Every structure is written in C-alpha cells, then in structure tokens.
C-alpha cells in the first residue's frame, strides 16, 4: 500500500528545478529525506502536500490523485511540521485550540493538551514570545493531535535541543506501532535517521539520487581502512573517495567482500554513517 506516489514530477521555481521525480513511499514505515540545503527537500514536501502545483507529472496521496482539489480533506489525514512554521503573533494556545477544533474533523483536544504539557509549551504566552524551538514543539503538538495517518516533518529537529530530539524520535517510534502510520522526515541531521529510518530518499540539485532501504544501503557500502602499500590500480578500482594519510588510507567501497578476500586482516571494514554515505554519493553517480 502506497501512502505517497510521485510520477515524473517536475517543478521549476526561479533558477531551481526539481527534475522528473519518481517516488513511491510505502505505508507503515519511516522514510528519511536527505540532501544538502537547497537540494529540493522542502520543495518536494510542498508538492506532496499540494501547497505547490507541479509543472508536470502526477502526485497521489493515499491513492487520491486530485491532491490540490481535495487538499483540505487530505490535510485532515496529514500532520505536518515545517522548519519555519508561522503562528499568528498575538495568539495563545487556548485561542489556537479553538481554531484547530474547527479546522480538523478529528481534532483530539485531550491529546493536544497532553503534548502541550509533555513538551512544556507555555500556554499563556503569545506566540511572538516563543523561541524557534518552542514554535517547532507547538507544530508537533498539532501534528500529533488530529489522528493523522501520515506525518510529514520538514527539518523538525534542526531547532531542537538534543534532549528533545531524542524524545521526538521516541515519540515517532511509538506512533509507528500503528501499522497504518507513515512518516516522511526530511533532515540534514542524518544521525536522526541512522537508527530509526526504514527507507532513505536522497535528492541532490533537484534530482533523485536514490530511494533505498536503509539497511541495504549500509550493507552495500562500507568504509575501508588499510595500509597505503596495498593500493595498486586494481585495488583502487574497487574504492572511491580514497584519502591517504601517514597512518594509511580510508575509502568507501561497495566491493568490501572482494577486498576482504584479497586482503583479509590487512584491511578493516566499518559501517558507514548516513552522512558519510550522503557525502560519498553526492560526488558519485548514485546507487
């Protein structure tokens, strides 16, 4: 079952272009969207949510292709958090709650109150006095309080302190105990995804670099360390991003088994982190 599907979607905005994006995001899993700042993560999310219209291609949410026309009904089923959410400056939590009740069919007020308390959001302060982190927490409380079946989070952790980030990741995993829940999570703090993401989508300069199971990616690519002496033309063919220092070389390879057979204990293979993989694949040609 697919939660989000994009077929050959393109969008030009000024000098930036999203090019022929094909994506199918499965229901029931956590998908991480990675890429540098300006790679097109936010544009992609805006298109998915029907906040922008694609120049070409087809987008469907929960199998519904008329995302723009049905936006209001669809947004009831989606919780979203943007890096720069704006709230009316003079408003407070109780006033916002009244609006949310009208806007969301399934607004769950006790749940909302629960998260307001849990996130230690100040109820009587006007939103203009909120810090960026507090606004982010408020967005999250809203996203989590109307029985959404899809959560779309754009850089939710970038303005959060590390403690709250860990709490958030735990909350996301709790939500995933419901197998109909889907989470799309864009971030440049890729360590958020090292553990909990099921799939990773990487975009670079408006193009899809890969969309893969995280486990498969991390199994395929390994970091290789070894002595510089073993580097000959053939070995270098199996390696990319070779860095030589006085203590040996470090590189990335998708042929770590062959290298282990050739050099055994002379080399050390290690798991990559997602940020290392991202850095590597950005320079290369994708998976």
């Amino acid at each position: 079952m697919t939660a989000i599907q994009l077929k050959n979607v393109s969008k030009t905005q000024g000098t930036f272009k999203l090019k022929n994006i094909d994506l199918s995001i499965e229901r029931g899993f956590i998908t991480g969207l990675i890429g540098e700042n300006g790679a097109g993560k936010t544009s992609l999310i805006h298109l998915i949510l029907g906040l922008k219209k694609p120049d070409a291609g087809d987008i469907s949410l929960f199998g519904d292709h008329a995302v723009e026309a049905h936006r209001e009904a669809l947004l009831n089923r989606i919780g979203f958090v943007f890096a720069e959410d704006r709230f009316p400056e003079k408003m407070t939590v109780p006033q916002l709650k009244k609006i949310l009740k009208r806007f969301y069919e399934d607004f769950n007020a006790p749940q909302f109150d629960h998260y307001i308390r849990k996130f230690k959001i100040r109820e009587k302060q006007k939103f203009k006095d909120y810090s960026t982190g507090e606004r982010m927490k408020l967005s999250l409380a809203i996203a989590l309080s109307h029985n959404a079946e899809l959560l779309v989070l754009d850089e939710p952790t970038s303005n959060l302190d590390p403690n709250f980030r860990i709490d958030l990741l735990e909350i996301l995993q709790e939500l995933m105990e419901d197998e109909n829940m889907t989470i799309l999570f864009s971030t440049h703090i890729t360590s958020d995804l090292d553990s909990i993401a099921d799939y990773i989508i990487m975009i670079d300069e408006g193009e899809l670099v890969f969309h893969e199971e995280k486990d498969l990616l991390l199994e395929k690519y390994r970091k290789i360390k070894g002595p510089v002496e073993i580097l000959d033309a053939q070995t270098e063919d199996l390696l990319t991003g070779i860095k030589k220092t006085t203590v040996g070389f470090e590189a990335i390879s998708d042929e770590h088994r062959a290298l282990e057979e050739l050099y055994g204990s002379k080399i050390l293979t290690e798991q990559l982190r997602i940020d290392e993989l991202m850095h590597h694949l950005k320079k290369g040609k994708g998976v």
Partner: protein
Amino acid sequence: MEVFKLNIKISNTLDVPIYEQVKDEIIRLIMSGELGPGDALPSMRRLAKDLGISIITTKRAYQDLEGAGYVHSVVGKGTYVSEQNTELQKERILNEIEGHIEAMLLASRQINLSREELDEMISIIEEDMK
C-alpha cells in the same frame, strides 16, 4: 497490554548487521531456555521501538528466524517461539564449533603455534568480544 521481557543487547558500533544481532540474540534466548515453545515475541513494531531500530530491521530478523524454524507467525496474532528440537539444534551448533576448531588447529600447526599461545589468543579475543 502484555509485558514482554526480552533480554536483548545490540550494538550500533559492531560490524555485524543489526538484524543479525537481533536474530542471534533471540536464538540465544531460545537456546538458553529463557524463551520456551509457545512464548510470544513482541510485535515487530514494538521491538523496533524498544530497541530504537527500524521496523524493516526487525522484520528481517523475524523472517530469518521463521525461515530457520525457530519461530512461527500466526496471521493477525503475532510471532511465537516454535517447538524446538533443542538437542538437535545444540548438536548442529556443536558440529559447527568442531569444524571451526579443526580449521584453527590446522592453521596453528603451520606456524607451530603452541597450545598455550593458542589458549592465550582465545582469551584475548574473548575479552575483546565482551
């Protein structure tokens, strides 16, 4: 809600894939008798949450365990430890260990490694693995 107590430890720094660590830990629990036939395993999603790992990772571990006959799943209910022929399983693992020891002794002979040196190596490696 049922409370599961699974004594599972996984490490993110080991070069052993997480799904394999999960699988090995559950096999260890079955072998040691901490998990008996008919015992329910936590749902994949619950275990993923409790271990702070992805759902696909636990799914893969459960699939492998099922493929190897350690557990079985009942549609709509969950995953349960299967009736094990524990003796047979132990036999199988003992055989495997014998094979490794043979290979180890053959290799030691090539460089005239003494029994004491070999024992010492085992202790060091054992210490490293802790």
